[in-house]
């Protein structure tokens, strides 16, 4: 009975550790993606970042019920992402218009949609790590 509980803890602990590692890797991958969209980085960096980010997000989504603390971290990240998306969809067209006017360029809808995704993911990791660091 005790061994079974101990084994269960070990698996809960291991899953929590894997979860947090994935969250950190996802945050790093997101930061790399942002840098890659601004600065000229090699293509493999962008590819690797997208791959790591996808794996990380899948693990974070599937394994979020490890325990209530991990669930709380996920909820915090999800709340941030939701607010960021609402703000993005309200203000992005307005900001996009200003930037387009300034640069005299017309940005397509693809760039807008891609930007929204990155904003949501960035906000998710910001919320997750804020909760992780400060509670």
């Amino acid at each position, binding site marked *: 009975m005790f061994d079974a509980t101990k084994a269960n*803890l070990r698996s809960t*602990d291991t*899953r929590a550790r894997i979860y*947090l590692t994935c969250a950190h890797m996802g945050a790093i991958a997101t930061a790399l993606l942002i840098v890659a969209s601004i600065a000229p980085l090699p293509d493999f960096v962008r590819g690797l970042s997208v791959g790591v980010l996808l794996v990380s997000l899948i693990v974070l989504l599937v394994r979020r019920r490890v325990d*209530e603390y991990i669930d709380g971290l996920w909820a915090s990240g999800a709340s941030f992402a939701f607010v960021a998306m609402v703000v993005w969809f309200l203000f992005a067209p307005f900001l996009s218009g200003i930037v387009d006017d300034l640069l005299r360029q017309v940005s397509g809808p693809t760039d807008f949609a891609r930007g929204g995704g990155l904003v949501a993911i960035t906000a998710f990791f910001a919320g997750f790590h804020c909760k992780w660091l400060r*509670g």
Partner: protein
Amino acid sequence: MKNRLKVLRAERDWSQAELAMHLDVSRQAVNAIETGKHDPSLTLAFRIARLFAMPIEEIFHDEV
């Protein structure tokens, strides 16, 4: 919310991992509760109270 979890754990000479094992949560969760980064759910608070055989309000209290 402040709590006496660390003190109660120390009195029993338990590590965070051992307390986590008794509560069926991860060690990270115990650490977050002890440092005040996470407020436990009512279910977990009851489990903690039962484990230490104390009323909840003797373990957790508001920061006023």
